[in-house]
């Protein structure tokens, strides 16, 4: 199988088909990320299209750091593009929420089908799903999320807590149906 380094080398040497190969290799991964941020399929398609245009025109900004780094970078580009899309299309309010009265609910999300779980995350309120995605999948700390979104660290942690509880409830409802 062609390595990421070989793929990049092919693109940089002018192999036009390598663009297509990059798309085919990572588009399925990219759309799954997009759907965790944006529930509407048409909007995700737009985000994916814009993301790949930016990826393929911004490869000069990418520093290869070993196998898997290209995939991670593509994932980050899609995530940032999706966040940008949400900020433009939806009225997102990142305010701190009181979580003292929330009872932590148990749920075994492991049993959920991946596609259903993906779409479920995408249907969380915008501020919840942005923070949850950044924390769980982008592996940012609340400090880093706060820096990225320009919010307080406490706001990020409270939004994540709410997102987690709501997702568990949705998962339980699905599993108990």
């Amino acid at each position, binding site marked *: 199988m062609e390595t990421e380094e070989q793929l990049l080398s092919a693109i940089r040497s002018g192999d036009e088909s390598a663009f*297509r190969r990059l798309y085919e290799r990572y588009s*399925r991964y990219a*759309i799954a990320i997009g759907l965790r941020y944006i529930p509407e399929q048409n909007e995700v398609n737009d985000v994916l299209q814009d993301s790949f*245009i930016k990826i393929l025109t911004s490869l000069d900004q990418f520093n290869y750091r070993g196998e898997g780094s290209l995939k991670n970078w593509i994932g980050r580009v899609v995530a940032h*593009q999706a966040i940008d899309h949400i900020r*433009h299309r939806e009225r997102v309010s990142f305010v701190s929420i009181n979580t003292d009265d929330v009872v932590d609910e148990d749920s075994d999300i492991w049993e959920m089908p*991946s596609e259903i779980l993906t779409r479920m995350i995408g249907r969380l309120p915008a501020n919840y799903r942005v923070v949850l995605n950044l924390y769980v999948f982008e592996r940012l700390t609340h400090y880093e999320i706060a820096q990225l979104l320009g919010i307080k660290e406490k706001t990020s942690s409270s939004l994540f807590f709410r997102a987690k509880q709501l997702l568990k409830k949705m998962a339980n409802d699905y599993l108990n149906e």
Partner: protein
Amino acid sequence: MEQDKFTQQLRDKLDGFEMDVPEGLWENIEAALQKQGVLPVSEPRRTRQSRFITLRHWAVAASVVACLVGGGYWWWSRHHVEGAPDSIHPPEKAVATVTTVTAETAETTKTMEAVKAVKTSPNPSYRRGMEVPSPEETSPTLSSRRGTEVNPAVAISLPKEEPEEITPPTPKRRKQPYISIYSGNGIDNYLSSNGVEMAEQKANSYHALYASNTHATRSRDIIYLASYEERQKHDHPIAVGLSLSYPLSNRISVTSGAVVTWLHSEFENIIRDQTITRNQRLVYFGIPLSMNYRFWQYKGLKLYALAGGQADWNVSVDTNTDGVKQEINKDRMQWSVHAGAGIEFCPIPQLGLYVEPGVKYYFDNGSNILNYFKDKPLNYNVQFGLRLNMWNL
């Protein structure tokens, strides 16, 4: 550790998960890339960089060419007019003639009036010193001075030391307003690298945990996270402007105009083994105001000092993170003061080539936007350009 379990389960379940992509998406992407001229691409990295560099070079080159063409045209226009068969005597000749007359003749009120009439002639071109009527045309009395028969009754007598009273206003270059096109930039790039502090809450726990350790940190010590780093790099500001200078005296002039400044910064957040890169491009429109004092001049070469201030308005912001465009607010108005020295060489009176090394201080405008001005408020810069002395043409 419910939260850790939930996070880990979710991560394990969906990290790397793939879903079907709708048909036709690649065709749209391909069409967009072709429209942008990206496909076919030989070397994306070099193409992209060279495009940016070329843009800068073209901007500078365009300024220089515009100045040269403009200067050349005005210079050529002037010489073309002088060389025309019906042109009138140049100012130098008129001065010489009148001076000669002054030395040879006696005083009469009548001729004085005639000379005053010359001096106050409504002919605008004459008053500008562009074209000077000959003595024959302006005064028959003066004309007769050249003949062998001199009529004492109409002779002119003016004190020799006051020839300027009847001298047409020959352009004095240093007293004329001028326009210049210039370009300038800071001398150095600025690069800084900062550790990322541990959050206060976590830092307190850390202090409490290691309180008994002999190498324990003091409670007020800042703890930097080992795997986190923030780097920022600020490129030279590139400035291109057009200025207009107005002389207040022989040595002092005031200069203002318009200047466009481009700033580029790159920020890197290194989080564990990943790097998030953010590029920021800002464009400012500025209005400078400065005073120039010329303290030395020899032929076409002169030295001067300058000091003043500038107000800059941010007119454009372009920010992207890992290639994804982000919206941020524009920067606030930026005030700065500057001082420096300049050297100007004028190969011809109409055109000057100058270099102005100086120091500039940018005041904190209170905004959150990080740029070269904030990280290096006091910086040295060199401005250079071509100065076109419009009123000397």
